[in-house]
């Protein structure tokens, strides 16, 4: 009698356990599916709304005044490229040098402190960098400017560039360094002529990834680069940027501007994805380089 009960109970738990076993995989799949569904929704809306608005005019014209249909974002596209160029100028040298120092010279405790600072800095909200650039650059110069925007984006690149540089420099085999030193080269020549060239692929990848991340940043530009509806060739004047333009068009009440916001979004996504592709290219080249040895 007791065995019967036990058997029944056993069968019941077994059924329940097998059911859960099957069910959980479906539940997990559903989680991933929800995610994919959202991504597809975003991409299809981008393509449907954006592609129909992209034409040659979009790339060669300035924004039209309110009420006039047409015009483009030529100034915003070049503005974004200018800001990114400045960001590289500000951020990459510091990140690169700091990363090399951390791996080649720094003693353990100092390196840990800097690494910790970098990780924490990586998590500071981008808008805080915007405020900082505003206080440092915009207030003393008394004008919104290209320079302050590039500065804000540049300091945002520093933590990422430092981290990846350090990682890739560390991957250079020690035998290479020792071979250089054995030939009588001073350490700095070993670093400049051996360590850097053999890790340059990885370092470039890191720079590209950092660049792709700041390329879409809007918040730090709101009160530094500020935006501009016209061309600007002066570093001390406000300049247009794609993310800023998308933002201000998206929250505007005009149908035609909404259309252009979608078009701008497509261009921005394409810019970001191509920077990421470039990062992959450098990564693959690095693998080929290392395998070729």
């Amino acid at each position, binding site marked *: 009698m007791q065995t019967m009960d036990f058997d029944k109970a056993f069968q019941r738990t077994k059924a329940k356990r097998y059911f859960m076993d099957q069910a959980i995989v479906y539940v997990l799949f559903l989680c991933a599916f929800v995610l994919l569904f*959202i991504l597809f929704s975003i991409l299809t*809306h981008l393509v449907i709304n954006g592609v129909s608005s992209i034409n040659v005019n979009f790339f060669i014209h300035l924004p039209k005044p309110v009420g006039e249909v047409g015009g483009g974002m030529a100034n915003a596209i070049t503005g974004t490229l200018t800001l990114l160029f400045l960001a590289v100028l500000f951020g990459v040298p510091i990140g690169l040098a700091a990363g090399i*120092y951390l791996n080649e010279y720094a003693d353990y405790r100092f390196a840990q402190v800097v690494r910790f600072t970098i990780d924490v800095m990586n998590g500071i909200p981008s*808008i805080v960098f915007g405020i900082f650039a505003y206080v440092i650059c915009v207030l003393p110069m008394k004008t919104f400017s290209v320079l302050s925007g590039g500065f804000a984006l540049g300091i945002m690149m520093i933590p990422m560039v430092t981290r990846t540089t350090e990682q890739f420099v560390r991957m250079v085999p020690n035998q290479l360094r020792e071979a250089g030193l054995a030939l009588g080269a001073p350490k700095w020549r070993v670093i400049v002529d051996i360590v850097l060239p053999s890790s340059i692929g990885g370092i470039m990848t890191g720079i590209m990834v950092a660049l792709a991340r700041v390329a879409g940043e809007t918040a730090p530009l709101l009160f530094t680069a500020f935006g501009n509806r016209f061309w600007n060739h002066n570093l001390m004047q406000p300049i247009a940027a794609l993310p800023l333009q998308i933002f201000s068009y998206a929250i505007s009440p005009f149908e035609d501007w909404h259309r252009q916001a979608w078009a701008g979004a497509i261009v921005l996504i394409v810019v970001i994805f191509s920077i990421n592709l470039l990062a992959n290219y450098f990564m693959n080249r690095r693998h080929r380089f290392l395998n070729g040895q």
Partner: protein
Amino acid sequence: MRKDTSDLVFKYFLAVFPCLILLLVAGILYQLVSSSGLSIHKFGFKFLSNRTWDPVAEDFGALPFIFGTCVTSFLALLMAIPIGVGSAIYLAEYAPAKVSKVISIFVDLLAAIPSVIYGLWGIFVLVPLMRTHVQPFLGKYLGFLPFFQGPNYGVGFLSASIILAIIIVPFIISISREVILAIPSVYKESSYALGATRWETIQLIILSHAQAGIFGAIILALGRAIGETMAVTMIIGNNPSITSSLFSPGYTLASVVANEFSEATSKTYLSALIEMGLVLFVVSIVVNALARLLIWSVTTRESVTV
């Protein structure tokens, strides 16, 4: 001897740059504190507990914004954790290799989309959907709860939380996935060999071994959610309010800075906004330091035992 001096010069030249980074973070803190001095001096700690936001009378309190940031971040985590951790387990353990690879690429893609584009999608796709379908539905069937009452605009806490959840999910997935993949497969195999089902293995082996790492990922995601600006600004409705209704428009610390900074007319106004930035800075430093210490403690502990 010349060799030695050139080496020293190079070393000290390079040493300037890490010090510059330390100085930079200290400088950000210093500048934020000194620029918000006016507001700190005038309002003191009451700034954090005052619910009025009146630029005309120059009476500023951050409470509605702190409330908005807390509510949206909390709700976003509530939605993102199950989906993120679930997807991570699926990708790491059960998805066929090819499917896992493709989905991982998509997750990376999702992480690369800038927040202003999420905001654009939010304004033109999510908000109308919330207004016409989701919120009326919630109001009809769950309307007895205070969270789902009140007028339905589409923009508001709920929509902003959903966007935030979408933005932070890729973070949770990519870190959790790595943590789960790092669990030695011997543990899982022994669990299966003892007759455990997949669900039991997930509970007993995967989640218990990966919990510290996943927790770190969640805290990092929280830091991200707190500081996220553009997407939230575009769909939260920008109205400083403290209510129990998730349908009502709100405001967050980051979005008030984004919206009102360049229009701040008086010095007190500006310094109050900068003090918001200071609050964001301190909170994000604490959150990130916590996450980092947690992740470090896990990795060093494991390197000792292995």
